[in-house]
């Protein structure tokens, strides 16, 4: 059971890493459009998130290695001191795994508090990553070529980040970096919203301008407002191939 649990958690960490990669790609595309250097907090936030995932994955791999060691020792020296030490090592992990399995069988599993064990993910996070999280990954495939498309991707990122965040118990190591990533995504979402608004406003001004054509002063007002809007508009960045800078 422990081996199976560790395998599942490892799999979900892979999904989480892929989601983070997609998020980073999209945020950097938006930053590229703003023609400014990416804001200073983005890279430390990404590093923090990656660092936590890496650290948790590291502990998970250690659990896996020790489990292998335990199985081997049980075959060779079942009553040896190393077996006792390894059993002690796994006692908390094993209890947590059993607890979680029991909680998952209950009618309202979200009402129970799980043990926080390094290297494992809470069961609600596992459920999200293996279900909706995977579906979300599917939505992030393919190239983005317009602001409305980017808007829906960023909404998708905001969704998975906030949903995953809500599955974490307070104080979980992933909580803080996820919160910071949500804020970074939100800021870029506002920029993308503005770009979509400018595009729509330009069309709206053209529509109204057509209906008011011939009125004295109309040309001056529309020309100036359109120029102001166009000055605020940023074209969607062209996809850059790796190594073609």
């Amino acid at each position, binding site marked *: 059971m422990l081996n199976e649990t560790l395998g599942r958690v490892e799999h979900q960490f892979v999904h989480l890493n892929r989601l983070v990669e997609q998020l980073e790609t999209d945020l950097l595309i938006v930053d590229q459009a703003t023609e400014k250097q990416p804001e200073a907090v983005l890279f430390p936030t990404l590093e923090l998130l990656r660092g936590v995932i890496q650290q948790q994955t590291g502990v998970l791999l250690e659990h896996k290695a020790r489990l292998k060691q335990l199985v081997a020792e049980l075959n060779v020296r079942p009553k040896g001191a190393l077996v006792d030490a390894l059993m002690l090592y796994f006692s908390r992990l094993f209890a947590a795994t059993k607890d979680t399995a029991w909680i998952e069988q209950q009618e309202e599993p979200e009402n129970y508090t799980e043990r926080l064990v390094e290297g494992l993910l809470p069961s609600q996070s596992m459920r999200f990553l293996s279900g909706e999280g995977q579906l979300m990954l599917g939505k992030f495939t393919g190239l983005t070529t317009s602001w409305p498309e980017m808007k829906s991707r960023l909404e998708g990122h905001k969704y998975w980040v906030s949903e995953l965040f809500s599955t974490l118990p307070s104080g979980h190591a992933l909580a803080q970096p996820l919160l910071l990533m949500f804020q970074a995504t939100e800021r870029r979402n506002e920029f993308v919203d*503005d770009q979509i*608004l*400018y595009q*729509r*406003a330009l*069309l*709206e*001004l053209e529509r*109204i301008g057509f*209906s*008011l054509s011939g*009125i*004295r*002063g*109309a040309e*001056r*007002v*529309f020309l*100036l*407002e359109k120029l*102001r*809007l166009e000055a*605020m508009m940023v074209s969607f960045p062209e996809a850059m191939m790796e190594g073609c800078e």
Partner: protein
Amino acid sequence: MDDLSSMNLLRHGSKTPDDIERLETILDGHMRMIQYLENIHDVQYAAYCNLFVQRIEKQILPILEEAIVAAKIMVSMKETLPQMTIENLRRRIQAGNDLPAYNGGDLLDV
């Protein structure tokens, strides 16, 4: 109505149809004034009249025309416009409203 509540009304756009009517009345008054001044052919006043006409045409009419267009845009818009554009349009309407009111140049017809 105090200044603040008047500004709030303008901010929410509810005054805009009234603005169009008021601005068009002011514009109409200035157009009548131009006509009136152009019909004064007395040599003694012609130069002054010409100066007044030029001032109205260059300094007042463009502001009023643009204010009317801005108010009409506010009334016609179906999609939300950016805050920046809304502010610019409001500023134009306000500039027109700040000009001295003319009652359609009625007095000139007497």
